[in-house]
């Protein structure tokens, strides 16, 4: 015979508990963890490169890509310790990968750990990997309709960084529309305009990160 059982049990993606444990681990060490999410080519690595002079000596970086260690080498060239994860075909980083990476990184003096997720504005939004906050990186060259079309990442993010703003004079991009649509998706979202090329907005972003990390 059959028996129907009402469960009404919430399901989380595998790894939520490990993410909690990892978050406690980072917290005990005073490391504030930022999970950077954005499309391939949105400028996540360039943003970190631009921020590196202020982060030297107090930050480490984990890089996620399908292939190559190019990003790790770029980050090391600007003076930050970096660890590269290659997911081969995986569309996002998972918490197990972060846990294994953590042992390979010098975190003793780190105030910040930046995890640059696999370039993808969709899947990484669904996974907790031990971070304190997610920051969405969206470039103005992607098209000003992207915050409206891809709101999932913005909804789980604490901030959105609009990158490559130095290119605005050459583009048909309504940056105000990007900001408006993003705030509709998430009214709490902080928005920054940055250019890794000119350095515009990078200090404001870092000031805010320091503030949020201190408040935690």
């Amino acid at each position, binding site marked *: 015979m059959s*028996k129907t059982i009402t469960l009404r049990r919430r399901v989380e993606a*595998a790894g939520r508990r490990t993410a909690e444990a990892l978050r406690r681990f980072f917290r005990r060490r005073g490391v504030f963890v930022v999970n950077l999410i954005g499309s391939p080519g949105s400028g996540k690595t360039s943003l970190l490169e631009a921020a590196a002079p202020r982060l030297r000596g107090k930050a480490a970086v984990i890089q996620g890509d399908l292939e190559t260690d190019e990003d790790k080498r770029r980050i090391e060239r600007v003076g930050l310790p970096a660890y590269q994860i290659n997911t081969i075909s995986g569309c996002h980083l998972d918490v197990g990968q972060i846990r294994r990476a953590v042992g390979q990184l010098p975190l003793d003096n780190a105030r910040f750990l930046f995890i640059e997720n696999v370039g993808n504005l969709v899947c990484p*939004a669904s996974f907790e990997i031990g971070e304190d906050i997610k920051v969405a990186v969206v470039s103005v060259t992607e098209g000003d309709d992207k915050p409206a079309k891809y709101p999932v990442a913005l909804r789980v993010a604490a901030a959105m960084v609009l990158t490559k703003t130095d290119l605005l004079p050459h583009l048909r991009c309504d940056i105000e529309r990007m900001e408006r649509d993003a705030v509709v998706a998430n009214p709490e979202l902080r928005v920054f305009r940055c250019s890794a090329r000119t350095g515009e907005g990078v200090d404001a972003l870092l000031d805010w990160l320091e503030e949020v990390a201190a408040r935690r």
Partner: protein
Amino acid sequence: MHELSFAEQILKCVDQEARRHCARGVSRVRLRVGRLSGVNGANLAFCLKAVAEGSAMEGAEVEVDEVAPELVCSDCGRQPVGGVVEPVCPTCGKEAELLLNAEVYIEEVELDVEDDHAEAKS
């Protein structure tokens, strides 16, 4: 394909439930998937059937109710909406609460049990 991670969790949960009730098998699983959860219902059902092979859940029917976000108005009740909208009731214009419903739930499982166990430990 991150639906696979959800499917693995669901299987673990259903398997546990089947064992708790000494079930011979699982005939049906009903899920509730928020449209804003980032999980695609059809993909999730597919993944679940794939990971269920060789388990108590093998061959079970998988039903997925997809749920839209809702506006809750104290006068007009609950109304589904297309996405993230201003928290204002579309009927009376009063301030309303927006429920994202962005979660995944196992609503119900139907187990195939021996008569002796049907009443036990429910």
